[in-house]
């Protein structure tokens, strides 16, 4: 792929370049991938009514899953997909291009959902090798017990939803009760003064203004 095309594709993925700005071959690829995605989505069961689902999940497991979690679940749920070799190769090439061109820290790391005074903040660490992951920070008084992350279906994607008051926090993950590991997707990493680094997150309510 030419550098110019790669830049345009990157701009398109970042929402800065409209589809019409892509060269014709990439537009065709996009259309075929969109069609493929539509086909895959047809396999998904129809969701339960949102209100019922929220009530059931709140009663059984606490907060209802966010759209982010549903999307993640869609990706990690095993299923059989039939592809022609040509479409399969196209999908692999598109995936490789995304990985090669996607800049680090494109977006803010945490998914936040406003629930009044508290903002449910999702912390995620990809650590397939980990046996346990905990979260601690100044919002948890740096307690080593911290907040336990859940390994989503044994995928090594560790997740915790934490309601936090709006503010700016420093935090870190504790892997296997021994390794202090910063969040690689955090807004920034800061020197903790002790020879390690902490991650920084801004938690803000949707109703607050600067």
């Amino acid at each position, binding site marked *: 792929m030419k550098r110019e095309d790669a*830049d345009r594709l*990157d*701009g398109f993925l*970042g*929402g*800065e370049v409209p589809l019409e700005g892509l060269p014709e071959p990439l537009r065709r690829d996009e259309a075929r991938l969109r069609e493929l995605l539509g086909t895959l989505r047809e396999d998904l069961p129809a969701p339960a009514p949102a209100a019922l689902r*929220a009530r059931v999940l*709140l009663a059984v497991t*606490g*907060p*209802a*899953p966010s*759209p982010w979690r549903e999307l993640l679940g869609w990706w990690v749920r095993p299923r059989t997909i039939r592809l022609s070799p040509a479409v399969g190769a196209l999908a692999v090439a598109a995936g490789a291009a995304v990985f090669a061109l*996607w*800049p*680090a*820290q*494109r*977006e*803010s*790391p945490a998914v*936040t*959902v*406003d*629930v*009044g*005074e*508290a903002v*449910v903040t999702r912390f995620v660490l990809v650590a397939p090798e980990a046996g346990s992951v905990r979260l601690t920070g*100044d*919002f*948890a*008084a*740096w*307690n*080593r017990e911290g907040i336990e992350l859940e390994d989503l279906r044994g995928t090594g994607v560790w997740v915790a939803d*934490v*309601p*936090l*008051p*709006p*503010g*700016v926090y420093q935090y870190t993950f504790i892997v296997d009760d021994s390794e202090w590991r910063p969040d690689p997707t955090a*807004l*920034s990493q*800061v020197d*903790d*003064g*002790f020879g*390690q680094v*902490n991650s*920084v997150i*801004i938690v*803000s*309510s*949707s*109703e*607050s*203004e*600067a």
Partner: protein
Amino acid sequence: MRLAPFGAAAALALVQALAVSAQVGDLAARAGPETLAAVQGILDEAAGDSLPVRALESKVLEGVAKNVPPERIGQVVARLAGELRAVRAALREALPDQPLLDGEVVAVATAARQGLDVETVRPLWVSRSEGEGGSLEVPLTVLGELVRRGVPVPDAVSLMTHVVATSVPLPVAAQIPGKFDGAVGSGASPAAALGQALRNLNIPDPPGRGGNPPSGRGRRPPG
């Protein structure tokens, strides 16, 4: 996803109770006599000077959790207290009539570590006093993050003053550094990246700054 009000309140109360009780109660229980001896004088003096004591206590607990030797914890906490004292004094001199929140002092101290002169943040307080005025902790933190990323201080201050003056929602303001990173990752210069970040978030350009006018007024997050 929205939690029921009771659930949200209970969850928030749980987290706050965890943090507050752990911090207040655990400082003595977790720090141990040697660490307490190293930091108690610093904390007492900080409280007398109206410094953000919770930030200092948090640093003590962080050091304890990370198994840092007491002497080293004392050094780090003393240095942090010195930074906060200097920042608070500078802010008090520049803004004698403005209330200073702990989070604001901590945010300016963090930004100052990136080379930001405390005097330069005065316009943010002026903008706030002209508006309704909430905590400046988030705008100041974003300001520090932009300076850390190489945005010239005058540009960063001008932008965040504008953000405060136009009451840009905090969740939108908080996304500026991430959008800036995305644009830089795409090959944009810092100046161009800042413009892209603003357009991406539908934040109007600050007065005197070039660029295409955004389509909205920056009051709501995009999409």
